[in-house]
């Protein structure tokens, strides 16, 4: 499961030896996120976002469990119970603002994590399963976040639920029955809020389970690294602890500073003011917009305005929106280039940045009303999104001439530092090579 030169877990205290021989849990921790897990020594700060995502998930779970102690999932009391949390519950405002902004920050971290993976080819063999589990987590996160946004039962909650569940009514023949089944009525109502609360509570634990599977799958080949060259020997790696735990603590500090800036100084900057108006099924807000992190996909949904091939525009939009995420599952087989890192792929690197800008463009269009010129911009951006993955990536694998790769991770690291690689072949496996800088 790990490299042969990984540090061995050798508990010194008799108590830990006693535990280890009966329940080797400390050994498992040591081997997965401790000194027993060798990591490529050249990974940069973009590789910290996996750990940050795990912490963001834990913040959501802990604040969420606390909020559930004070929240009341009923259409007559939900809105008031959220206000009760904000005004009466001791520190309730803090915990709710952490949960609200924590969701946004979780998505920021996840999106950076995904774009890191796209840049360094983290989805390629032998890490396809790691990537696909990640896409599954993204889908679960979107479902969880959407249902959580419905719970305060404000105007955006209600109308967001209305619009998103209406998507399913676009499915031919059975669509309307599915929509009614999902909301438990003819429109979002009490049955909707109670089931969404139940699922919103349980799905984060499902995510946690998938995260554990993902870490398990990751630890078979280990992390990628900015060169994309495979680990060849002990000179290429450093133990996760203390080298990368220390680095992760540093990035966590920065993360918590930014998080606190939002929680304490602009807690509603990422939300929508209409959600502080109680839900009213007889009055629609002027612009129904989802939370910011769903905007690019909302733009794809709305990009289809004409019926085509007997399929109505509304259904095309729904198909495209789901396809835009589901196609990520096939990414390892759409990109057949054997060079992982975009650093050594001059053409792919250009298109990567086009895709990056394109996502912001889609997000911007998603926030704008459905009128010109936004509709046309959204259509072009949607076309590029699909072309990038379905046409450009497969083609690039054939026409691109990659730059020469370094011979090894250690060579690329020490070439930068102007030193010669330390040969550690003679050193016992427990010894740790000196840090790079």
């Amino acid at each position: 499961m790990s490299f042969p030169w990984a540090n061995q877990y050798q508990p010194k205290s008799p108590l830990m030896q006693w535990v280890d021989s009966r329940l080797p849990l400390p050994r498992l921790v040591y081997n997965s996120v401790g000194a027993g897990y060798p990591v490529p020594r050249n990974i940069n700060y973009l590789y910290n976002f996996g750990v940050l995502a795990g912490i963001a998930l834990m913040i959501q779970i802990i604040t969420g469990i606390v909020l559930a102690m004070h929240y009341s999932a009923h259409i007559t009391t939900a809105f008031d119970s959220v206000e009760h949390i904000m005004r009466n519950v001791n520190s309730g405002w803090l915990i709710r603002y952490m949960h609200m902004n924590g969701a946004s920050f979780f998505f920021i971290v996840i999106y950076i994590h995904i774009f890191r993976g796209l840049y360094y080819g983290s989805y390629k063999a032998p890490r396809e399963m790691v990537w696909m589990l990640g896409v599954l987590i993204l889908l679960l996160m979107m479902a969880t976040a959407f249902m959580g946004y419905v719970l305060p039962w404000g105007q955006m909650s209600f109308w967001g639920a209305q619009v998103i569940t209406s998507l399913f009514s676009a499915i031919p023949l059975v669509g309307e029955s599915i929509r009614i089944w999902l909301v438990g009525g003819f429109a979002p109502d009490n049955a909707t809020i109670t089931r969404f609360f139940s699922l919103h509570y349980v799905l984060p634990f499902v995510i946690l389970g998938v995260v554990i599977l993902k870490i398990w799958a990751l630890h078979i080949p280990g992390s990628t690294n900015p060169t994309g060259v495979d680990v060849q020997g002990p000179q290429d790696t450093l133990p996760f602890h203390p080298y990368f735990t220390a680095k992760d603590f540093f990035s966590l500090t920065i993360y918590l500073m930014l998080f606190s800036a939002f929680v304490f100084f602009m807690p509603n900057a990422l939300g929508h003011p209409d959600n502080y108006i109680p839900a009213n099924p007889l009055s629609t807000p002027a612009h129904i917009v989802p939370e910011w992190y769903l905007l690019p996909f909302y733009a794809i949904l709305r990009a289809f305005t004409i019926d085509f091939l007997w399929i109505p525009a509304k259904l095309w939009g729904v198909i495209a929106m789901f396809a835009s995420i589901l196609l990520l599952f096939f990414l390892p087989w759409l990109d057949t280039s054997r060079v992982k890192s975009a650093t050594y792929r001059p053409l792919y690197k250009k298109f990567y940045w086009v895709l990056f800008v394109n996502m912001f463009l889609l997000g911007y269009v998603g926030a704008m009303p459905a009128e010109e010129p936004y509709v046309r911009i959204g259509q072009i951006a949607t076309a590029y999104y699909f072309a990038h993955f379905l046409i450009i990536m497969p083609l690039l694998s054939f026409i691109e001439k990659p730059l020469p790769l370094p011979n090894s991770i250690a060579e690329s690291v020490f070439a930068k530092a102007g030193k010669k690689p330390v040969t550690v072949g003679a050193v016992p496996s427990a010894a740790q090579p000196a840090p790079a800088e």
Partner: protein
Amino acid sequence: MATTPETMTDGADGVRRRDFIYVATGAFAAVGAAAVVWPFVNQMNPSADVRALATIEIDLSSILPGQAIKTIWQSKPVFVRNLTPVEQDEANKVPLAELRDPQTLADRTKDGNRNWLITLGICTHLGCVPLGASEGENKGDYGGYFCPCHGSHYDTAARIRRGPAPTNLFVPAYAFKTPTLIEIG
């Protein structure tokens, strides 16, 4: 891999008695599992109290010509409008070829009650609630309903005339129980 004579009977077509037992057991388990899963799926469908409100009765006697009311049916807004003769004439004058979703006023009302226009108050574009049912609200350029979200104008027969909405306001199934009482649903 115990190949006793009992399990090996009937070797002519390669089918053993044990194969039948496997298939029968599997089929029985699948049917049983489906029977257990169904209640867990079905519990998410509308409950009896929600279904009980699937139809409503509306008393029309207090709605004067030119007036409209908003009410709720299946948690959705419904507009009930008493059209004046002028409004009916306006709707009847429009050539069908001009309409995005061609329907006559007669298609959208009941025989003998052409003045009663009953529609859902849900814009067919993105589901907003159009204005025009209450006194003093903007009725749009065609005197019917106006959706403020993306500017869809509906005429006096609640047909889409201008704006992004694809179809006319939906006319739900309803019936006159007495001349002044309708049942929707």
